[in-house]
């Protein structure tokens, strides 16, 4: 299984490596991007990841949180994680400043289907902070633009202030990504789309649905509607990919927390083919 080949964790999967905060970028309310470097430069040099994979960020005495990597896989030196304050670990991280050290284990999990999408169209559908785990995929797709055809981003947020990485959109457009945004609620000055993001997929022109790959990350109900829309537009079920979120404690398939039926979301996912999990997605409390 090609998704599993991405596992490149250290020999002892419990060993975290020390990272240092090099810089912090405030993104939107309660969300910041932490630019990290490994204290041992030899680890930093050998650390590679694939778009969609995550790390366990470890704040000693507080705990670990599974956070997707949000930087360019081709970038060397620093590793970016865009984090929303949501619990103890992310709250403690928000109190840390430049130069602070903590632990990192990873990378873990499966990757977005970049190779599977070769020579076809790609539609990235995401909302809110869901853009963070897809940004490495955007970078890689743009770095290899001539290996794909039409690249489209459909991005939704509750309001215009909930959008990540807005200062990068023009650059992405210039390099060949068709960036489309929508908000649930407009605010003064917004003259763009209003409505939920699957509606953008309903409306967008698709020149070759059979060779279109959908990469989707957001709340489960949003991913379900996105998949339904994609299927309705003639995109094959095996070309629709989603990223699931579950409680992750060990990240290595040993603790049992993240199970979703047969799937260990930490090692079989988080990126999963929609048709392999579709039947369980709508089961209440599963």
């Amino acid at each position, binding site marked *: 299984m090609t998704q*599993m080949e991405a*596992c490149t*964790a250290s020999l*002892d*999967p*419990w*060993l*975290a*490596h*020390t990272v*240092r905060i090099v810089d912090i970028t405030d993104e939107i309310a309660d969300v910041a991007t932490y630019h990290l470097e490994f*204290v041992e430069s030899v680890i930093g040099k050998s650390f590679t990841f694939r778009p969609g994979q995550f790390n366990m960020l*470890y704040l*000693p*005495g*507080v*705990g*670990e949180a599974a956070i997707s990597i949000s930087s360019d896989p081709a970038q060397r030196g620093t590793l970016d994680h865009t984090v929303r304050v*949501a*619990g103890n670990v*992310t709250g403690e991280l928000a109190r840390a400043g430049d130069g*602070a*050290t*903590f*632990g990192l284990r990873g990378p873990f999990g499966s990757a977005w289907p970049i190779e599977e999408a070769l020579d076809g169209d790609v539609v990235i559908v995401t909302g809110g902070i869901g853009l963070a785990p897809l940004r490495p995929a955007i970078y890689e797709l743009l770095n290899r633009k001539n290996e794909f055809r039409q690249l489209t981003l459909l991005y939704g947020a509750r309001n215009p202030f909930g959008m990540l990485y807005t200062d990068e959109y023009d650059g992405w457009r210039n390099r060949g990504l068709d960036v489309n945004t929508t908000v649930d609620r407009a605010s003064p000055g917004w003259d763009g789309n209003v409505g939920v993001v699957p509606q953008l997929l309903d409306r967008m022109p698709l020149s070759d649905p059979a060779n279109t790959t959908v990469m989707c990350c957001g709340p489960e109900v949003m991913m379900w509607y996105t998949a339904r829309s994609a299927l309705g537009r003639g995109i094959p079920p095996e070309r629709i990919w989603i990223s699931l*979120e*579950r*409680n992750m*404690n*060990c990240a*290595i*398939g*040993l*603790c*049992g*927390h993240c*199970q979703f*039926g*047969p799937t*260990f979301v930490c*090692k079989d996912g988080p990126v999963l083919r929609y048709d392999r999990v579709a039947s*369980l997605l709508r*089961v*209440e*409390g*599963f």
Partner: protein
Amino acid sequence: MNPETTETESAFLPKSELQSLITLLADDGYQVVGPTIDQEAIVYDEITSVDQLPRGWTDRQEAAKYRLERRDDDALFGFVVGPHSWKKYLFPPLTTVASAQKTESGWQMQTPEPDTTKYAFLGVRACELAAIAIQDRVFTGGPYVDPVYNARRTNAFIIAVNCAQAASTCFCTSMNTGPKCSSGFDLALTELDDGFEVESGSDAGTAILDRLTTQLLTAEHTKRAAAARQRAVDQQTKQLNTDGIRDLLLGNLDHSRWKDVGDICLGCTNCTMVCPTCFCSSVEEVSDLANENVERQRHWDSCFNLSFSSMSHGTTRNTIASRYRQWLTHKLGSWEDQFGTSGCVGCGRCITWCPVGIDLTEEVAAIRGDTAAATSGGAA
């Protein structure tokens, strides 16, 4: 263990020689663990003498009931299985997986040195050999290997004991895991009045056996041992129909029975604690007051705990019914997808130790019965 190079032996081991076996293993650096009585139950603990074994005791088990009773003989292994399983040693209930120290240059993380404890397990039943084989797949089958389990498992010496009786809660014959021990041991014993039929299952087992004073196994010994083992088959009354059980359970996620069992289940986690294959755990931070020295301690956890599926924006399995469904569909269903085997070995512990007497075989039968009725009803 390579079967092609292993010379297996069978012999008769007089009862008086069992102490020699324990002493020999201790001399070889093994910590011998075996059954012993504590708080009116037969549990597994470190032993040095045959006098610590539950000589002359048996256990009577049924749903939500476990009682020790006197036997009318001096059998050392004349019982079935108690609340403990060998996972207590291979997958310790509490262990440190990593640590962190605050230094002048920032946090430094370590993992512990490999565990060098050598355990010799005395009295491992066939269902428990199957459970160990299942946990081998869970913890060492990859892509990640648990270093704690792997070290202890690699060092372990296993002395199996064939059951000569069954409890009303036993159903290993349904799960094809017993009662006869067929592989996965270094030595296997069948207890007779005056000694044991002993069989080696590995080179290490043969080497130990060669150092004991054994006698030639007679046809009479063999006949009595086979009869004892057959008794454990004949006494089994409980059954679990495993035909298509994965699809049966995963195809009935909306069955009303989940709510029914959720209404009586206390969510106490007993079934998962006593289960010899349940492997769920959580890691917690244990730090000194200054938060400068931190241990990452892993403890057994359970899918019956509400917090087990909690995330920052909510909990996936909010009801006891949804948690029981998770446990049973995993144990008997999706375990097959994950590890190529059922997660149940038919030991019956979860039935005995459930305080309200929930019996998983009855839960499956109820769902199967309704499904069969619906199918035949549809065909009529």
